[in-house]
């Protein structure tokens, strides 16, 4: 009976933790769109999403690029997305951090190479999306202490921090060799870890939200009218 009560007590505690995780850690996301040209994509055409890796103090994570690609590749009006690494390997050495085109004029020069134009055609690439950004953690405060002894262990305290994800997506039309627009996704959120014996992480899913919103917006942008 005692064991049953103990299990019930812990189950309630766990359920309360899950509910808290779902409701307490909030994220606010802002998406801005700037359109420079008409867009549209056929079912046999593809998009490649590439991370910019020229900055010295941060790097656009490949996991974020995959996340945006997966978001565009599923659901209603799914778009064919060529995986970043597959594209970069096939185009080697023209899309490495040092050699990747920075402007559409550079892409025009690159497309003059027969082998590049041929591979681009094989992949069916209609748009290249350059994603540049990172997630920065700031405002870390509070303290959390964990201890373990012969009689058991536990954690006490409270910790909090803020995450800020900022990503720019620049869209190039490979057919027209022009830039057709820019989308910016900015997400911020406060995460908390209260601990009373058991630490309960209430993590703001900042980067995941930025990814999801950017993928949705990119899909709408590319499909056009």
């Amino acid at each position, binding site marked *: 009976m005692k064991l049953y009560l103990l299990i019930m007590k812990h189950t309630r505690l766990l359920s309360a933790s899950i509910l808290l995780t779902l409701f307490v850690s909030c994220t606010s996301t802002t998406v801005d769109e700037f359109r420079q040209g008409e867009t549209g994509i056929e079912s046999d055409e593809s998009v490649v999403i590439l991370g910019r*890796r020229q900055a010295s103090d941060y*790097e656009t994570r490949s996991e974020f690029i995959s996340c945006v690609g997966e978001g565009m590749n599923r659901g209603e009006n799914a778009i064919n997305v060529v995986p970043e690494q597959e594209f970069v390997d096939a185009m*080697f*050495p023209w899309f490495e*951090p040092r*050699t990747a085109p920075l402007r559409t004029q550079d892409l025009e020069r690159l497309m003059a190479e027969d*082998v590049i134009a041929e591979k681009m055609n094989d992949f069916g690439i209609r748009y290249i999306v350059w994603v540049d950004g990172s997630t920065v953690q700031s405002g870390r405060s509070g303290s959390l202490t964990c201890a373990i002894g012969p009689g058991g262990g536990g954690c006490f305290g409270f910790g909090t921090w803020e995450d800020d994800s900022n990503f720019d997506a620049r869209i190039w039309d490979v057919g027209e060799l022009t830039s057709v627009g820019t989308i910016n996704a900015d997400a911020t959120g406060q995460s908390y870890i209260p601990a009373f014996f058991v630490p309960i992480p209430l993590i703001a899913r900042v980067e995941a939200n930025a990814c999801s919103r950017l993928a949705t917006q990119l899909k709408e942008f590319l499909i056009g009218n």
Partner: protein
Amino acid sequence: MNTKKWKNCGVALMMLIIVSCGVSNVVIDGSFPTPNIAKLPIFVAVIYDDALREFSFMEYTETGEEEFNIESGGSHIQLFNAVLPAMFDEVVFVDTIEEVQATGADAIFAPAIEEFQLALPAKTKLDVYEVWIKYNMRLLTAEGDYIANWVLTSYGKTPAETFRSTEAAINDAAIVALRDLASSFSLSFGQVPEVRTWLSNL
């Protein structure tokens, strides 16, 4: 638990402590794609010396203790083996200059690593792992006379991530640096002034 088992546990724990305090060995491992470039119509003999084949770099802690031993000789050979046949019409790998003349090669290519640097987030306070490598590229005639000797640098970085080990991050940064070497070397080879002059006289 009897005394013998306690002793065994103690020895295992001590071993764990000793191992965790020692130097970490990182053998750079990755794959390299073949470059999409126009081949130069030359026959090149390639010599990898032992310094390149067995190249390793030791990173020390701020107190001067050995921290990471990075072995990248094998991956450099793997990289050149993937890149050179895509750059030249014909490539042969030899061990000494004496062997070259029998092959009928137009030139000898001998790469060497001059410097290797590693930057860890714990030291730079940046959220990236960085690798910087300086090379000395040498192109000689089949007889071993000078054609060109130039310096090439490559750089690679990878972001620090919560669930990735330092060893894996160093490996990823080194692979980016090696790809950077492959791209800059393959695209700039014909632009090196001495090489360009030699190619135009062939």
